[in-house]
């Protein structure tokens, strides 16, 4: 129960990162590996600023801005430097590794123990509201009072923040600029013939995507109590896993539906990981392996299922056809006999 609760908590924070990946990977059709670096940039900047006594909320926003700049640089590498999308992302990711170390003053880890973070402030505010008692009473009343978390504040406030970001994203993708960004990922030639500059739209889209990723990085650092130079490794795969799981489970009918699916996908991913780590065979170090397996499964399984369905349909059609032929044969035989 407790593992499940922390999966929910971190799930709604990672969902912001997943929304960023959705913007680059799905909307712009740009597999952007900058994510592995910009996630840490957000974490590093916010942690360093907090340690230096800055306001945690301001520190988080500063991290987000840095992510925006990193994403824009990847976009410029691709559009102006004509470098292949994957390579521009990898180059930026590698470059950010050194930059992140510089931000953290050449230390690989910045602990936030005993510092005021966004979450200590949120929890403090939340506890004054007295909602925790009410929620816990409710759970105890329905017989789930076994292992209740200390506070619901982080989960509820982060769920609200994530939903606000979701609605802002939905709104943005329906504006004139947003429509043009979507078309840039869909059909560049077409939107260029309608006087849109696909280069600057790509740069803007990647900037926004990485701003969200860095924002999530900054929050995860404060949630976990440290920023680490290696915390971004495989982040793109986690983002992808969330996007793919979400889309497969909850559908992509409209933009609003798809962004909701991505958020839920991020939460489901955390829950799967939490359960997988309960299995005794797995060590914590196997996390990335499990992630890779989840992504492989969610990519391959739907195709296998479709193929199997198709086969079943064909077999049925063949059988019907055979039956029809047999009936026809009988009819012919019958007419011959009667004549």
């Amino acid at each position, binding site marked *: 129960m407790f593992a499940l609760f922390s999966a929910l908590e971190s799930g709604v924070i990672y969902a912001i990162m997943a929304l960023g990946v959705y913007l680059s990977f799905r909307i712009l059709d740009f597999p952007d590996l900058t994510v592995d670096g910009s996630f840490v940039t957000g974490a590093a900047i916010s942690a360093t600023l907090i340690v230096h006594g800055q306001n945690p909320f301001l520190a988080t926003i500063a991290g987000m801005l840095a992510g925006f700049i990193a994403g824009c640089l990847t976009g410029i590498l691709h559009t102006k430097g004509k470098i292949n999308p994957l390579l521009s992302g990898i180059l930026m990711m590698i470059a950010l590794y050194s930059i992140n170390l510089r931000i953290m003053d050449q230390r690989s880890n910045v602990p936030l123990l005993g510092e005021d973070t966004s979450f200590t402030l949120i929890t403090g505010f939340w506890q004054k509201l007295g909602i925790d008692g009410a929620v816990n009473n409710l759970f105890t009343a329905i017989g789930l009072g076994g292992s209740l978390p200390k506070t619901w504040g982080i989960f509820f406030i982060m769920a609200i923040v994530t939903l606000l970001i979701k609605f802002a994203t939905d709104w943005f993708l329906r504006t*004139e600029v947003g429509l043009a960004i979507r078309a840039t990922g869909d059909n560049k030639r077409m939107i260029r*013939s309608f006087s849109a500059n696909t280069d600057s739209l790509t740069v803007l889209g990647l900037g926004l995507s990485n701003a969200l990723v860095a924002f999530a990085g900054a929050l995860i650092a404060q949630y976990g109590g440290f920023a680490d130079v290696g915390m971004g490794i495989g982040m793109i795969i986690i983002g992808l896993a969330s996007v793919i799981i979400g889309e497969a489970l909850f559908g992509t009918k409209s933009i609003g539906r798809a962004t909701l699916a991505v958020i839920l996908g991020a939460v489901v991913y955390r829950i799967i990981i939490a359960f997988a780590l309960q299995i005794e065979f797995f060590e914590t170090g196997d996390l990335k392996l499990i992630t890779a397996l989840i992504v492989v499964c969610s990519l391959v399984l739907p195709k296998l299922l479709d193929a199997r369905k198709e086969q079943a349909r064909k077999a049925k059609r063949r059988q019907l056809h055979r039956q029809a032929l047999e009936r026809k044969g009988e009819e012919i035989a019958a007419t011959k006999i009667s004549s």
Partner: protein
Amino acid sequence: MKKLLQLKSVHKIFNEGTPDEKIGLSNIQLELEPGDFVTVIGSNGAGKSTLMNVVSGVLYPDMGELLIKGKNVLNLPEHKRSRFIGRVFQDPMAGTAPTMTIEENLAMAYARNKRRSLKRGITKKSKEFFQEAVKSLHLGLENRFTAKVGLLSGGERQALSLLMATFTEPDILLLDEHTAALDPSRAALITDLTKEIVSKHRLTTLMVTHNMQQAIDLGNRLIMMDKGQIILDVDEENKKQLTVERLLEEFQRIRGEKMASDRALLS
């Protein structure tokens, strides 16, 4: 009156200085009056598409000038030039965004000649306007406004592309074999729509086609291209008497002469 489109001594050579060197356009002189509807014919590699790409800004010519309404536009990049140039491509998939809805596609086309802002892409007012516009296609698309364009047939997508390229009344309309990839009945439908739309908005149009009959039936002027040059220019009066046979004869005559002169050079 000012000429709408002017090409002066435009040259374009591909892979210059390599064994694959190929002449795209050679000394093209072309002037279009406002309201002209010019059809362009020629065999493969004659330079028809290169001409389109130079006008639209996809390709930059090696030499020459390009003026629209008397203004030199050679240094305007493709996306800026497309404020006053509408285009329909040969590939029905090329002119629309498949994962977006019909109304979203229309909204993007509608935003062509203004700066895109953070205003809503689709408003109540624009929606009504789009409804009316789509009704004029007589395809029943107005009932499928929120359907993704990827679900439409090739003919429907091409009709939508044509509408999107024209309903903001661009200064020039470029049609690049826009009926070539469709089956005959759909092609006829798009041809009729083209005629209707061009005359409704009095659009200055340059249309490339493989189909000689189409080239004769449409427009008020016909030019024939070969090996990057304009080899025949038929004005409105003479075009009325034109038939496919006469066009073929003419083609043969000009080509024959050229071939003869080539041989003369070699001997």
